[in-house]
């Protein structure tokens, strides 16, 4: 996030796109709702009419995967009507001409067809968001989990630069992170192209810096593989040993049949986790790890705040902290790593090597933590980025984006769109929440959420078991007929193994980030009335 959660309550206007905040980021949504009760304005752009839409002055039900067309058309109107922030564009950005050239083709009428809303509504959105300054834009995985995810993200940044909503309090582009420490794992360099602190592995000077710090030579210069490439490498034999730490890939990756084939192909698979799960079935070695409250350490939240994690009780049996396990493996390769606690790792290595984190030391994290960038020990941390329009690389660059449809679109055989996400009560594959007393009682099974119109057309009753099938698999699941879902859509989560949406999802990826298109694939739904079809499932 460029900005912070504590700005939500003071914000004057929000545009929330592709974010079911009340379920995926419940506490963040409470601050948005507080602001709305105090008079802030809210526009929700989402195919589903989720709970937050009840608080919005306008719900814009665009079709799944039409975000770029929608945002481009809004920018088209802003430019055509002169409703954008010319001063900010002139003084703080470059390549406005390129943006203007691209969005000129996205007339509201043209985009209306793609987005499934009226041109009038697009103009209306443009008018509303240009009338209030600043406006805070929030998004979640509805923007990123598409084959065009990277371009979706660029489009949100284009919009906010065009409106001059960058570098100001209560403005900015604010992706809410799905998992608690996605931000941190990125910051730490658990990515194939960067060292900790986003320092490129391809840069010779940076490699030398890390070689000196780690006392090694020959750090590799070429970018490594991303997860989908690793998985395919397991089948091709390019990747022979695979180490999975804490991710239940067999349930969370798209197209479970494909993923399980890939995992089964691994020549040597190490899984380090706190429970046996669907992924450990394929392991050769399973290493037991200490969990959340059995460890000291730090998490970094969506607003770049580094906060302490503290030990409440010891790990069971012989389970060990993850950092210790990695240290012990290094030792067997002849590397003696001296840091012997999370605190030593952070204070002596992480915060020395990552420029954004230099000022963050454990002794400064006792209270509310610190938000990076925090370059030195007297720095108070940074609530919002690009203050006064000063971008990291000087000027903000407009990067126009073209709309492309999802990799798989509905057709006669698979006429509906399946979109996936999270539900409030559970988390991911429930390895944790499923083992907490009470939570399964509140939400005990998966459902396929469908619209009343589709239910009527297929004569499906609320609560009836149905079949959902895609080109990759099929599942049997209870139908949940709800107004929240538009006609033509099936919406599911991936919390339960049996009716996991990932039996159906499409392993198509964004070409840059390799994020999978969890938000759109084509499916068919059927009644399970005839016994023959019952037997097949």
């Amino acid at each position, binding site marked *: 996030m460029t900005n*912070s*959660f504590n700005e939500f309550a003071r914000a004057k206007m929000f545009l929330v796109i592709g974010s079911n905040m009340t379920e995926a*980021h*419940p*506490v963040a949504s409470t601050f948005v709702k*507080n602001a709305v009760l105090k008079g802030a304005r809210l526009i929700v752009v989402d195919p589903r009419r989720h709970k937050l839409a009840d*608080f919005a002055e306008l719900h814009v039900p665009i079709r799944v995967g039409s975000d770029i067309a929608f945002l481009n058309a809004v920018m088209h109107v802003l430019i055509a009507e002169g409703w954008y922030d010319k001063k900010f564009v002139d003084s703080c950005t470059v390549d406005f001409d390129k943006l203007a050239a691209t969005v000129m083709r996205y007339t509201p009428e043209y985009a209306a067809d793609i987005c499934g809303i009226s041109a009038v509504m697009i103009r209306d959105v443009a008018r509303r968001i240009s009338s209030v300054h600043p406006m805070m834009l929030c998004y979640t995985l509805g923007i*990123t989990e598409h084959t065009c995810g990277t371009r979706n993200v660029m489009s949100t940044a284009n919009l906010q630069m065009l409106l001059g909503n960058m570098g100001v309090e209560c403005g900015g582009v604010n992706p809410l992170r*799905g*998992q*608690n420490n*996605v931000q941190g*794992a*990125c*910051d*730490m360099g*658990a*990515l*194939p192209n960067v060292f900790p602190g986003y320092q490129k592995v391809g840069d010779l000077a940076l490699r030398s810096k890390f070689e000196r710090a780690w006392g090694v030579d020959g*750090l*590799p210069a070429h970018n*490594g593989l991303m997860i989908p490439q690793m998985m395919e490498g397991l089948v091709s034999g*390019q*990747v*022979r*040993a695979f*180490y*999975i*730490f804490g991710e239940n890939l067999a349930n969370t990756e798209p197209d479970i049949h494909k993923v399980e084939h890939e995992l089964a192909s691994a020549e040597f698979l*190490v899984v380090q986790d706190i*429970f046996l799960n669907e992924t450990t079935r394929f392991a*050769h070695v*399973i290493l037991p*790890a200490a*969990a*959340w*409250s059995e460890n000291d*350490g730090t998490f970094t*939240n969506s607003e770049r705040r*580094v906060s*302490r994690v503290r030990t*409440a*009780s010891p790990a069971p*049996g012989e389970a060990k902290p*993850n*950092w210790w396990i*990695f240290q012990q*493996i290094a030792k*067997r390769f002849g*590397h003696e790593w001296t840091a012997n606690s999370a605190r030593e790792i952070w204070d002596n290595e992480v915060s020395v090597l990552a420029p954004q984190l230099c000022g963050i030391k454990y002794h400064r994290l006792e209270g509310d*933590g610190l938000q990076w960038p925090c370059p030195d020990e007297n720095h108070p941390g940074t609530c919002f980025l690009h203050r006064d329009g000063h971008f990291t690389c000087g000027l903000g660059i407009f990067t126009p984006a073209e709309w492309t449809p999802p990799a798989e679109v509905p057709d006669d055989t698979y006429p509906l769109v399946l979109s996936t996400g999270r539900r409030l009560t559970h*988390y*991911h594959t429930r390895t*944790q*929440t499923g083992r907490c*007393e*009470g*939570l399964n*009682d*509140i939400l005990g099974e998966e459902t396929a959420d469908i619209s009343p119109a589709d239910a009527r057309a297929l004569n499906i009753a609320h609560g009836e078991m149905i079949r959902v099938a895609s080109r990759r698999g099929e599942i049997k699941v209870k139908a949940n007929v709800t107004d929240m879902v538009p006609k033509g859509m099936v919406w599911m989560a991936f919390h339960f193994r049996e009716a996991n949406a990932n039996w159906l999802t499409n392993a198509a990826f964004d070409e840059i980030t390799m994020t999978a298109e969890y938000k759109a694939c084509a499916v068919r739904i059927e009644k399970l009335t005839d016994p023959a079809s019952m037997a097949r499932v």
Partner: protein
Amino acid sequence: MTQQKMMINGHEVLFSPGQTILEAAEAAGIWIPTLCHLKGTTPTGACRICVVEVAGARTLPTACSTPAAPGMAVQTESPRVIEARRLILELMLSSGNHNCAALNGGDGDWTGFQLGVQDSDGSGELCPVWGDCKLQDLAFRYQVKVGRFQSHEGPYPQELANPLIVRDFSRCILCGRCVQACNEVQVNRAISFGYRGALSKIVAAGDRPLADSECVFCGECIQACPVGALVEKKARYRWRPWETTTVRTTCPYCGVGCQQLLHVQDGRIAKVTGVEGAEPNQGRLCVKGCFAYDFIYSEDRLRTPLIREGGDFREASWDEALDLVASRFKEIIAASGPDAVAGVSCARSINEDSYQMQKLFRSVFKTNNIDHCART
């Protein structure tokens, strides 16, 4: 804004226009008891425990909802104020199952009274929040005796129907804090005041069980309840405040990163609350942050390293398991080069774990094949 002057308990106190007597007093470090007042929400004046004496005023105004005024002279603990507070507390105590304060009860029949209450509670235990109850604290502070008014259990049975929150109407003092918490803080709009007079009750829409209402089990109302009318089912009769230490930590679920207080008793987390006033959540949590902590004590936890043997796994020592991992990785790297190994780190675990893992892959294995599920 220019500050103005008033007198509290004979001291000159500065306040900003718009502040209430309560806010002015708190800013000056002067304590006034409150029960229904919930910071950041509209004052309701429901409980009247915060009454103070204002020179020249005929009645005792409530400090939480009365604006401070220049020249106002306030007494926060005058005999009249104390008398009023005692009466309020006595009425509250006798309105339900409040066995805690029965010590020094009017008839001196402490044990009998307590046992009676415990029986009707069906638990044979003390009130689940004994020692962490604002009403109990105030009853002791103001030396309130019960017994003058007839105690009764109230017209409504406990609601045990949902797995997470126990609603014990017999202990509810109708202060309305839960209603404020639900409607103004979390804005879930699940509960409100229902019925009238002696039948007053906090109800979820249509007086249904919470599980059938708009309730999302965020736990905000429990945290707001000053008494034992709303308690965590999982913590009830297990958690005792005087046996607990608290540990501040960060929620392990979503990217908001809420600050939690773990209440640890006998080496186990007994309950979780939000850290009041903390960034980023200001004391708020959701159902996961509040209730999804006990997975760590599951019987299913992995306790020893496991090594595959045929179709099954056998237990192994750390040395054996780590030696095996190291030797297989060495062999494969020697035969096929460092890029024949790859790793996926965990976006749930602490920063230091991800740092160590990428360091292992880069500096030891010499590959950049390290990634994590950044995108889900």
